[in-house]
């Protein structure tokens, strides 16, 4: 008997499930269960994954970082209670839109820096001090955080920034004039620098 195929999903199921999944995200948030909410948005530097804890934005990831792997890392390092729930990311998505449309120079979002520790987090906390359209070298940032010899560690802190774009590690460059390491790839870094220079 083909009972199983008789019970197969009807065409309305995809819509129903989508609606139920969004409702689940809202209910989980209301019950304090939504440890990590995420969504994906399009941008001039490719699809971006945005993830937030109740504390604030915790991760911005480029397409080339593999969003599935990023979600697995969030699940391991923060909590497996991860759901696609765009609502918590509404303000982030809006501010990024404004940034890419050159209508915003400073992000005004609560951040959760818990994915980075120690010196890396210290560097990331100072990066927003580099204003829109400006750049610094790794050495200058090392001096900024009070450890002028740590330019290599600054390079690593920038390359492992969990919140690219919003925490502007793209404004930090090697002294030799090359774009340097960037989570989104060197082309994305140049796109952002050109956007801000225009």
């Amino acid at each position, binding site marked *: 008997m083909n*009972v199983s195929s008789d019970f197969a999903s009807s065409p309305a199921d995809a819509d129903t499930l989508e609606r139920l999944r969004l409702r689940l995200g809202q209910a989980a948030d209301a019950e304090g269960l939504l440890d990590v909410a995420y969504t994906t948005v399009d941008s001039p530097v490719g699809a971006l994954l945005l993830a937030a804890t109740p504390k604030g934005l915790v991760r911005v990831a480029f397409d080339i970082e593999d969003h599935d792997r990023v979600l697995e890392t969030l699940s391991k390092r923060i909590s*497996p209670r*991860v759901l696609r729930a765009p609502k918590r990311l509404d303000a982030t998505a809006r501010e990024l839109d404004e940034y890419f449309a050159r209508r915003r120079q400073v992000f005004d979002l609560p951040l959760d820096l818990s994915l980075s520790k120690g010196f890396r987090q210290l560097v990331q906390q100072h990066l927003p001090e580099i204003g829109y359209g400006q750049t610094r070298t790794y050495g200058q940032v090392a001096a900024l955080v009070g450890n002028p010899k740590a330019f290599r560690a600054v390079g690593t802190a920038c390359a492992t920034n969990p919140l690219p774009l919003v925490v502007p590690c793209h404004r930090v460059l090697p002294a030799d004039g090359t774009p340097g390491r960037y989570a989104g790839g060197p082309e994305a870094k140049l796109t952002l620098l050109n956007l801000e220079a225009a």
Partner: protein
Amino acid sequence: MQPFEKVVAQHGGTVLRVCRVLLGRHDAEDAWSETFLAAMRAYPDLPETANIEAWLVTIAHRKAIDLLRARKRQPIPVEDVPEAPTALGVPGAADAVDGDLWQAVRALPGKQRQAVAYHYVAGLPYAEIAEILGVTTDAARRAAADGIRNLRKNYPGAIREGAPS
């Protein structure tokens, strides 16, 4: 442990179909929501080796019972009961949204309906179903077989003939 979103993506459809068999379309959505909310709460403590689908169906089973009780309908009977009269097969009485098969399954006695849902919709082995229903594996197998026999007898058009599974 994989992100809970993957669990929803992978098993959401099956759980919805199970809930529909247990409750009908409208209540199925509430049961689905309750099931995944409860699952999300417990998820971080779930052993890595757990059979996630069986775990979800077990939660759905309980939520469906809760929902039926809360709505003060006839609860899912513990013992098989005689089939209730039904409007099925009466011209014009059929629900335009629900197919005949769904209605036919919901007209089954509780345990048969549950066994059919958990075996033929969720694809669980009878040993798992036995645990959910609190019966022996043989009794679970029998309930599913009786359910299918009833479906075939009462609504022959609703089930296509095919190779026995």
